[in-house]
């Protein structure tokens, strides 16, 4: 697999990679592909799946708190 393609996959966000993975299966399933192209698709699928799994395993949800313009005093006591 070519470096550029691998890098492009690594740059994908989860949803894009996940969709590309589904798409890849459809292509592999539906189209008359040469052996070489099939192999490329296969490797691409593996790379996409690995990337998706890695994103899921490693992600840490980022939390950002908005600065409320009108200052509210927080009187919540749950």
């Amino acid at each position, binding site marked *: 697999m070519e470096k550029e393609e691998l890098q492009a996959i690594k740059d994908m966000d989860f949803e894009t990679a996940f969709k590309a993975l589904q798409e890849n299966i459809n292509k592999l399933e539906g189209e008359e592909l040469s052996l070489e192209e099939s192999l490329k698709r*296969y490797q691409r699928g593996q790379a996409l799946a690995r990337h998706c799994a890695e994103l899921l395993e490693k992600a840490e949800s980022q939390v950002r708190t908005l600065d409320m313009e009108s200052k509210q005093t*927080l009187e919540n006591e*749950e």
Partner: protein
Amino acid sequence: MNEQYTLFQPKNILSVSQLTSYLRQLLESDEILQDIWVQGEISNFSQPSSGHLYFTLKDSDSAIRCVMWRNTAARLKFSPRDGMAVEVHGSMSVYEVSGQVQLYLDTMRPAGEGVLYQEYLRLKAKLEAEGLFDPERKRPIPQMPKVIGIVTSPTGAALQDMLNTIQRRFPIASVVLAPTPVQGSKAPPGIVNALKRINQESNLDVILIGRGGGSIEDLWAFNDEGVVRAVAASTTPVISGVGHETDFTLTDFAADVRAPTPTAAAEIATPDRIELLGVIAEFINQHTILMSEKISDLRWEHGQLQNNLDRLSPAHQIDTYRQRLDELTHRLDRAVQANLERKKLQLENFQQSLRGLNPKAVLQRGYAIVTRHEDGSIVKNVEQVQPDDYVHIKVNQGAMDARITQIDTGEA
């Protein structure tokens, strides 16, 4: 005088038990006293280990003992305490052991709640009529959110529950928090402001709004008309998770999806990581299956092509010619053989005929050859001989000489 007399000369003297029992029957047979609402202030509150509640309900002038059994008390949505104004419902009876007239409670709520509830119903009907809660207004929730907005208190348990759930299920999503008080008088304008502010964020996929469980007053901000309208007006889909399973606020009706709790709201907003990993594993599996199918297809195709090629190759041509040659050779052999047989048969026929022409064979059949003695010529005709001529007669296995004695002409 008469009265005095009666007091000293009683007709019927009751025992204490008879009195309390009579009193009890009297109270329990009164329809009004068996279904009665009373409002007052709690004092001398106690809840012993039995779980039953005991207190005195009083106003400025009077007091009455109240009892609430454990099972009923467990359903209370607030913690009663001394000094609290409440509205209670129940039936009057007598505790015969002490002769105490008591109110046995089946319902108790903070004073004013009934008014709040009426207000809630009025507002609900109004907003419903405006179409704010229509099912057609509900929007789908994106399946894989990139950014999740949260409108809640920054210090509440609800925020932690939602963040934990997002981190556990789909940590890929990032969170934008619009902090706001969620109870008290500042909660409604705070929530409205937070909803407006968070809707200005770009790339926001869904908004979670909610707070943890509490009393009806605690949750009341989520029944505020302004808050409900702000939820309905949100440009980003909203999932509400206010209080517990049993709490229904108007915010819930206006939201695109109502979740029973803040945690459940976060669950609805996110796909589950474990399930996704399962789906991804299944995708890999499908890739492998498709690839091996592809390879076996190609192998079969290759086999077909190899066959075609073999048929077209010079070697195959040569084989074809070789086979045809074999065939022709065989046919030739057969033709020659047949010819030979025919000739042989012909020859035999000839031989047969020839055998018939052999003079010896004629002699064997009893014929004789007669030759003239003088010149040895064969006598084929009576005119060749005269009487007294000598002839030589050749027969089978010998010959003899003879003299002609008589000649007859004509047919033999």
